[in-house]
């Protein structure tokens, strides 16, 4: 230990070595943040101003990559798709997660079974999720065909091959994979609420739904905020699911920014363009995170 010997006087120089073990233990974290997250990000931002192709090189072209990015229909489509998917996914994940948690919180029988059923998709990767839902939504063999065989000859349910519905197809799969986890968080939140609240509400004769809406939900604000941030972070990273389920198609109807980044960095061998797109994604992350960080850490210092 650093403080083995009793020191006399003001050990200004030795202060650095106090709790040396703690500092040594923090080295991996410090290196990761500085080298990978800060360094990597700055590196990416720096090279987004160059015309790097296959290999990074320092030939600055100013804002050219950004100009091209925002004049690219694919990028605009990707941003729009992500915004649409993101809003839908946020709303549905949170509403579904909460409703399911409320249902499970009704002192039901077989709670464990239901919970397991809802949570197990979370164990599967997006690749698997995308593949299986592509299969189920396949018009020749999936739901459409089964319903048709039941006699509804004109029944059409082919979301993945129609540009205007493909995002819903992704949503069905995304929600299947992720809502169980949201439900878990919500359930934990519900159970963190003091039971006396329920007693008080019953004594006051407040209907159950009103208690949820006006009492429980406001009390669960932190859980909602956390869930929101987790889901939002997942949405920005959306990639595997799209690749596995639609490959961005039909056309570019389900392209997302992460795909654009990957495609331009590696397929198009235009690193500068990929880095510019990355930087824009990073900016959007900050737009999501800064309000949250402000909400979370803004008011309470040395609390």
């Amino acid at each position, binding site marked *: 230990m650093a403080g083995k010997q009793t020191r006399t006087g003001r050990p200004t120089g030795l202060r650095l070595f106090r709790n040396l073990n703690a500092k040594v233990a923090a080295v991996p974290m*410090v290196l990761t943040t500085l080298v990978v997250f800060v360094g990597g990000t700055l590196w990416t931002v720096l090279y987004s101003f160059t015309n790097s192709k296959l290999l990074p090189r320092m030939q600055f072209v100013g804002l050219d990559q950004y100009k091209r990015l925002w004049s690219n229909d694919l990028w605009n489509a990707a941003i729009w798709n992500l915004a649409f998917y993101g809003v839908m996914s946020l709303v549905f994940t949170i509403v579904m997660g909460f409703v399911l948690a409320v249902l499970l919180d009704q002192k039901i029988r077989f709670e464990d079974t239901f919970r397991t059923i809802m949570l197990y998709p979370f164990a599967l990767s997006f690749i698997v999720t995308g593949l299986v839902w592509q*299969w189920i939504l396949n018009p020749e063999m999936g739901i459409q065909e089964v319903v048709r065989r039941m006699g509804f000859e004109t029944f059409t349910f082919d979301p993945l091959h129609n540009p205007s519905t493909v995002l819903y197809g992704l949503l069905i799969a995304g929600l299947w994979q992720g809502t169980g986890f949201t439900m878990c968080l919500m359930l934990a939140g519900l159970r963190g609420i003091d039971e006396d609240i329920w007693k008080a509400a019953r004594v006051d004769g407040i209907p159950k739904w009103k208690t949820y809406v006006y009492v429980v939900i406001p009390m669960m604000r932190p859980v909602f905020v956390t869930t929101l941030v987790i889901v939002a972070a997942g949405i920005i990273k959306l990639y*595997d699911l799209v690749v596995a389920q639609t490959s961005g198609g039909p056309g570019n109807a389900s392209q997302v920014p992460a795909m654009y980044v990957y495609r331009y960095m590696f397929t198009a061998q235009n690193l500068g363009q990929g880095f510019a797109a990355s930087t824009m994604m990073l900016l959007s992350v900050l737009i999501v995170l800064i309000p949250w960080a402000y909400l979370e850490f803004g008011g309470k210092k040395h609390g």
Partner: protein
Amino acid sequence: MVDAAIIITPPSVAVSAVQPRGAKPKARFSGSNIMLYGTLFVVSVYYLLPLWVMVMTSLKGMPEIRMGNIFAPPVEITFQPWVKAWSEACTGLNCDGLSRGFWNSVWITVPSVIISIIVASVNGYALVNWRFKGSEVFFTILIFGSFIPYQIMLYPIVILLRELGIYGTLYGLILVHTIFGMPILTLLFRNYFSSLPEELFKAARVDGAGFWRIYFQIMVPMSLPIFVVALILQITGIWNDFLFGVVFTKPETYPMTVQLNNIVNSVQGVKEYNVNMAATLLTGLVPLIIYFVSGKLFVRGIAAGAVKG
């Protein structure tokens, strides 16, 4: 993988946390009860349908798949697709299915999980109990890091690993998993440790225990629920990883997910849906088993601290 940034707080509610708290349902066969179980049933169908389809399809032969519907159970059960997916499916010239990938995945997952959890739990512990100047700044950056799409970091990481001379080695992959698991896990552990009474830590210091002794003898034994959560998240996360697996390994060491992708995308003639589904199930088997076996612990681990913002 969705980022599972669970934020854990006081375990004081742990005991009661697994009990339902909502209002009591009324009589057993009341209308609202039928509604309740009816809804749960419909929801369960939605969740179970893909699993059902996967299992059923994987047990059918190709002719039956072409003729029948995907939801029907097989008329004639065959395990051939499973055999093929496990040991015969081809990618290029390699026709040994997923079997090789399984052990590669094990060799990748085990050390990556252990090391990433150790590093992250020590981080969380140091952040809570041994704050040093700027530690919160590093933590904040780390949290921001958890939201950075991996694609953005891919190129810098390639350069980093090249400079360290461990690109393409198991060490490199472990490092990558440790780095990218760090934000979420650190958050997880930090929040959990900060929910433990600070006085315990102080008492241990008065008792003369140092950094590591407090960590191993006081903190770790009290943190079982959060270690379980971290363990489950990391095992599934690393097992399911595709991007790092494909970029940072080579064919001999491809994990199962990469081989799954190869098998599914190496269409030779017609798509063999039954083999694909069997391969998919085989790949998902480890995380699935973990969830089915220890899912309750996972839920409990999250509930063990309720969630806070």
